[in-house]
């Protein structure tokens, strides 16, 4: 498995409405080598920022992130070739009118011949059982089918690491199950944030993020318990106010 390493990473952004900068992630040091890594935490806790660092979409204010030794700022193009990123809303990720066209778009750089590209796109869609939906407008697909289509477009270029930012948040139970089974069959290293605690329990390692800090790092059952306790503490504190 490739290793994703965070070395004393802090991310801070300037805000218009408050003096100084807002810290989104504070002094995170991690080495992620497990096949399945989950990230859980409340909305706005810093999960997405942590994931975006892996693909170079967010750059650290201090510290560094490397994927298999490649620096996510200095070697960002190489990192993006190796790290696939799936967003929460597939409609903001799929940039072509149909799934086939979107997968072919992913392959334009690597496969120059259009007939070969078409074949490669069909193979990528077939792997996820989506070939029969290849020419349907992305607007006509269900949420789960769209999410799988976005996944197919990312997997078409064979990344070694797959980062998913709350991929099941917009899905119903059936589609969530479909996505879960698909992810279980992938050989890539997966780093995924989620609010679905059942899904988190299937990971090899789970990080709990709170207010920009990793407050728990360990096995899934203990991590979910720690997260539940954290949420209850927050609720009690709110009630006392």
């Amino acid at each position: 498995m490739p290793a994703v390493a965070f070395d004393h990473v802090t991310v801070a952004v300037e805000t218009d409405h408050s003096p100084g900068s807002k810290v989104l992630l504070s002094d995170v040091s991690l080495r992620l080598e497990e096949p399945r890594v989950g990230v859980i935490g409340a909305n706005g806790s810093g999960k997405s920022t942590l994931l975006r660092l892996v693909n170079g979409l967010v750059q650290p204010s201090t510290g560094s992130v490397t994927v298999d030794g490649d620096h996510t700022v200095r070697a960002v193009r190489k990192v993006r070739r190796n790290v696939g990123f799936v967003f929460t809303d597939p409609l903001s990720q799929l940039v072509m009118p149909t799934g086939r066209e979107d997968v072919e778009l992913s392959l334009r750089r690597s496969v120059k011949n259009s007939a070969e590209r078409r074949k490669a796109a069909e193979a990528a869609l077939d792997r996820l059982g989506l070939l029969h939906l290849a020419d349907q407008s992305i607007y006509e697909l269900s949420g789960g089918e769209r999410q799988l289509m976005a996944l197919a477009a990312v997997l078409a270029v064979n990344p070694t690491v797959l980062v998913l930012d709350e991929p099941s948040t917009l899905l119903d139970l059936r589609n969530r199950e479909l996505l879960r089974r698909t992810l279980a069959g992938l050989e890539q290293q997966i780093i995924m944030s989620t609010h679905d605690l059942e899904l988190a329990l299937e990971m090899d390692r789970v990080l709990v993020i709170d207010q920009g800090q990793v407050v728990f790092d360990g096995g899934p059952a203990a991590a979910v318990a720690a997260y539940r306790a954290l949420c209850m503490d927050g609720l009690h504190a709110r009630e006392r106010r």
Partner: protein
Amino acid sequence: MRGHGFLLANYVPGNSLIHRTPLALKFLLVFGCGLASFIIVDWRISLGMLGLLSGFFLLTGAGLKKLWGAIRPLTAVLLVIGLFQWWQLGAPTAARIVLNILVCVVAASLLTATTPVQKLLDGVVKAATPFRRLGADPERFALTIGIMLRSIPYIAGTFADVRDSARARGLERNPRALILPVFITSVAFARQTGEALAARGLGEPED
């Protein structure tokens, strides 16, 4: 998000004469129709051209429903333009302007309905290759066209959603309640699309 208000027709697989026509010729047809809209001064010629192009469209096997689907989202705008021009410049000029816009839309739909997007993008890359010497990246040209095709239905769908929301709140007559949310959503969409492209390494210069 509805996103079904597609302004140009999606590709319809087929083997008609128009499907088999070389891409360059179809490009020329669209370009020629655009140019003609500035030159033609008689509404009857515009009507004839619209009839001819609609006939070509139906010959492709894409069907009347698809043709209407390409024109329908424009009807309200064309009505406003037509009425305004009638008031300002008279009926013949109003008819010519409206018909010329329809000619352009049908010509563009003829191209998109008979050409797979990837073939269209390959054509754009080929046409833009000479600009490589000036430092341009032909793949970026193609990507821009692809994103444009994808963004039109998104923004049309956003407009439909916003109109429904405004109607639900009794604000359908308030232009601010319609225009501002569409504008904000479109900017957010552009940002998300940019981020998605960056994440996939698309639009970056080749090694």
